[in-house]
C-alpha cells in the first residue's frame, strides 16, 4: 500500500526552528515530526511513502535513508518545481502512487498530529464503497477553518464551506485522506486545491465520505499549537503506553524524557514536558509545558514554561523563560536573564532580559 505526505514548503511559521532544519525534521515529542506519520503508516502495512516537497531535498534525503533502513519502508521524494497547492502534488507523484493493484492510497498533511487510526479508516472506506474518505475532527471554533458538512449517520459529504459566517457544522478537514486511484484522474498537474476543487467534485457525485477522527488532533505548524499539541500527544501516550512516560517524585503529569538525558537533584519537571537526547537539566530546575530539544543544557535554578528551547542551546542559572519563548538552535541565554516571549534566531547570545514578546535576530 502507498502513501503521500504533503510536506510543502519552507515552514516559515515554525521559524526560527525551521531556519536550522526543514520542517518535517523538527522534533516533536523527541522524534522528527514526519517520523510519527511514517511509523503510523508502516504499522498498517504501507510499503512506500512519497514525500511531496518543494524545498531542500538534499537535507531530507540523508535522514530519509536512515528511516528507510530502521523502519524497512521505502521513502521517496517528489519535488515540485513550482508550488502546486494541496492537490497538484498528487498528480506529480501519480506514477509512484499507482501500482496497478487498484488499492487506495493515503494522503497525509505533514503538520498534523493525531492518533492515526488508519486501520479503522481502511475499514470505513471499504464499508461505504465510495471513491474517497477524509478524516474530520470536531473543533470549538469551526469558522476559523473549512467546515465539512456531512450526513451524520453515513458520513456522506454534502459540501465544504470555507470559514462559514453562520454555524453550518463543527467538523473540519483533519488533513488525512484515503483515496482510490481514480481520484488521480480528476487532478491536473497544475496548482490545485484539494478542498476547493477536487473534493467538491467528488462530493457532488456522492462519492466522498467523512469519518470523525477519534482521539486528539492538532496542526502543529506554529509554536502555540505545537505546545498544545504536545499536551494532547502526551495525554494520549499516558492512555496507550504509560511506561514510556517518566515517573518519580520530581515528575508532575505527563513527561517524556529521552534515556540519554540527565536530570539533576531538586528539579520539578512537568506537566507536558519533552526532554530530548543528550540534554542536561541541572539541579533545582523547574520545567512545565515545554520542549527541550537535543543537546540542550538548562543550568541550575532556571524556570521554563510554555516555551521551546532549540537544539544545543543553553539557559543560564536562575533564568526565567516563559510565554511562548522560542530559542532557535545554539542560543545561549545568560544567567538571571528573563525572557517573556522572546523569539531568538539561531547562534545568538542573550545577555539582557526580553521584557515583552520580541523577535531577536
Amino acid at each position, binding site marked *: 500500500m502507498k502513501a503521500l505526505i504533503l510536506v510543502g*514548503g*519552507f515552514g516559515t511559521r515554525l*521559524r526560527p526552528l525551521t531556519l536550522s532544519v526543514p520542517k518535517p525534521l523538527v522534533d516533536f515529542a523527541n522524534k522528527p515530526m514526519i517520523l510519527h506519520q511514517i511509523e503510523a503508516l508502516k504499522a498498517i502495512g504501507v510499503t512506500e511513502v512519497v514525500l511531496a516537497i518543494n524545498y531542500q531535498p538534499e537535507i531530507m534525503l540523508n535522514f530519509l535513508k536512515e528511516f528507510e533502513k530502521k523502519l524497512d519502508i521505502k521513502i521517496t521524494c517528489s519535488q515540485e518545481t513550482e508550488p502546486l497547492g494541496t492537490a497538484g502534488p498528487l498528480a506529480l507523484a501519480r506514477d509512484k502512487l499507482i501500482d496497478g493493484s487498484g488499492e487506495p492510497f493515503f494522503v497525509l498533511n505533514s503538520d498534523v498530529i493525531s492518533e492515526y487510526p488508519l486501520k479503522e479508516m481502511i475499514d470505513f472506506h471499504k464499508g461505504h464503497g465510495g471513491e474517497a474518505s477524509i478524516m474530520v475532527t470536531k473543533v470549538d471554533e469551526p469558522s476559523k477553518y473549512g467546515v465539512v458538512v456531512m450526513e451524520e449517520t453515513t458520513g456522506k459529504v454534502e459540501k465544504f464551506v470555507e470559514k462559514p459566517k453562520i454555524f453550518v457544522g463543527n467538523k473540519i478537514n483533519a488533513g488525512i485522506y484515503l483515496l482510490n486511484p481514480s481520484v488521480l484522474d480528476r487532478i491536473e498537474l497544475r496548482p490545485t486545491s484539494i478542498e476547493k476543487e477536487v473534493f467538491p467534485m467528488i462530493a457532488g457525485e456522492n462519492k466522498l465520505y467523512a469519518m470523525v477522527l477519534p482521539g486528539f488532533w492538532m496542526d502543529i505548524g506554529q509554536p502555540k499549537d505545537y505546545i498544545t499539541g504536545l499536551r494532547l500527544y502526551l495525554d494520549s501516550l499516558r492512555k496507550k503506553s504509560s511506561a514510556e512516560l517518566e515517573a518519580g517524585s520530581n515528575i508532575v503529569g505527563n513527561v517524556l524524557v529521552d534515556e540519554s538525558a540527565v536530570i539533576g537533584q531538586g528539579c520539578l519537571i512537568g506537566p507536558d514536558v519533552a526532554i530530548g537526547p543528550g540534554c542536561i537539566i541541572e539541579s533545582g530546575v523547574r520545567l512545565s509545558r515545554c520542549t527541550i530539544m537535543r543537546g540542550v543544557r538548562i543550568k541550575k535554578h532556571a524556570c521554563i514554561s510554555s516555551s521551546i528551547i532549540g537544539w544545543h542551546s543553553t539557559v543560564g542559572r536562575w533564568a526565567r523563560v516563559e510565554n511562548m519563548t522560542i530559542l532557535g538552535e545554539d542560543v545561549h541565554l545568560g544567567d538571571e536573564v528573563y525572557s517573556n516571549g522572546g523569539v531568538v*534566531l539561531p*547562534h545568538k547570545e542573550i545577555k539582557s532580559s526580553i521584557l515583552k514578546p520580541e*523577535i531577536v*535576530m
Partner: protein
Amino acid sequence: MESSDQEKAVAVIMVGGPTKGTRFRPLSFNTPKPLFPLAGQPMVHHPISACKRLPNLAHIFLIGFYEEREFALYVSSISSELKVPVRYLKEDKPHGSAGGLYYFRNIIMEDNPSHVFLLNCDVCCSFPLTEMLEAHKRYGGMGTVLVIKVSAESANQFGELVADTITNELLHYTEKPETFVSDLINCGVYIFTPDVFTAIQEVSTHREGQANIRHLSSFETLQSPTSRALPVDFIRLDQDILSPFAGKKQLYTYETMDFWEQIKTPGMSVKCSGLYLAQFRLTSPHLLAAGDGTKSATIVGDVYVHPSAKVHPTAKIGPSVSISANVRVGAGVRLISCIILDDVEVQENAVVINSIVGWKSSIGKWSRVQADGDYNAKLGITILGEAVTVEDEVVVINSIVLPNKTLNLSVQDEIIL
C-alpha cells in the same frame, strides 16, 4: 626616479565570519556580508580596488572565518579581473585582529613586502592609501593609522586617539572610553612595516610570561578578568598594539577629510552604497546611469544599473539607487535610496524608498515598500529577504521580512519570520 623593485606592498583585508555576523541578518542568510553588494560591487571589492591603485602591489589577502568555498569563486574571478593575486585565508580559531595577521605572517611576507596594509572589510571610506603611504614613509614609524574627526558625542563608540598636531605621532589610544578623550577616531585602516610582527610577538611572549606567574597578588585579582583570561595567541590590534606603543615614536596618524562609516547593519549598507555611488560620480562617472525619460528611464542623482537589468522608460530612479543583475523594473515605478538585488521584479507603478529588496523577490503593482531611513534604527530600513513576494497594492513600512514569505496584507513596524 624609478620606484624601487624592493618597495613591494601587500594588503590584508579582515573579512570577519558568519557567527559574528548575526547583525547582518536576514541578508547574511544568503550571502557572506563581505560579498553583499554596495553600489553594484561586493563590499570587499571597494577596499580591494583601493589597494589596486597602489604601486607595486604584490598580493591581496583576505582573512576570515568563512568557509573557503564561500570565497573561492569571488577570489578567482577578482584575481584575473584585476591581475593581482587575491587569496582567502581561513582562520581556524579567533586570534584577535593582530593575532590573525601574525598567524599568517609567513604567507603575508612571502613576497618580501616593505609595507603591509591592513584594512577592515566593513569600513566604508575613500581609502586614501597612496597618500597615506607617502605620509607613512615621511613619518618613518612602524605603523600609521587612518583617523577621522567625528562629533564629540559619537566618539565613544569607537577607538579614540590623541595625536600630536605637528608630528602626527600617535600619543594615546583608548577603546570606547566612558569619558571624553578625543574626537579623533580609529578608521580601521593601517599601514605597517614588517617590524609590526616583532611587536606582536613581544606582546605574545610577554603574555606567556605573565601566565606563568602562579602567585596572583591581590592587586592583580582586581584587574579586569578578561585581560587575565586571554590566550597567549589572541592579540587585539587596538588594545594590545596601538595602546602600549602609543607615545613611543613608533605609531603615527593620517587624517582623512572624506566620508567614513562602519557597515555593521543592513540599514547602513543603504547609506554606504549611496556614499560609494557619490564617489563614483567623482572617480568613475561612466559606471553611473543616466537618462531623461525619453529613451531610457529618468535618472535622478547617483544611480547604478547593472547592464543586464531592464528598466522601463517611464520609471523614475534615484537618488542613491543600486540595481543588480537581471532586475526588471516595470512602467511607472519610483525607486529612491534603495538596493535592488539580483533577479528582482518590480511591477508597474510600485514605489520603493529606503529599502533593500532581496534576490528573486517580487514587488507587486502599486505596492509600496518603504522606511523612515534611520540607518541605525532596528527597523529604520525595510529589508525584504530572498524570494519575498509583496502582492499588488500592499504596503510594507519599517519592517524586516525573512526569506520566502508572501505578504498579502500590509504591515508596519514588524519583523516577519
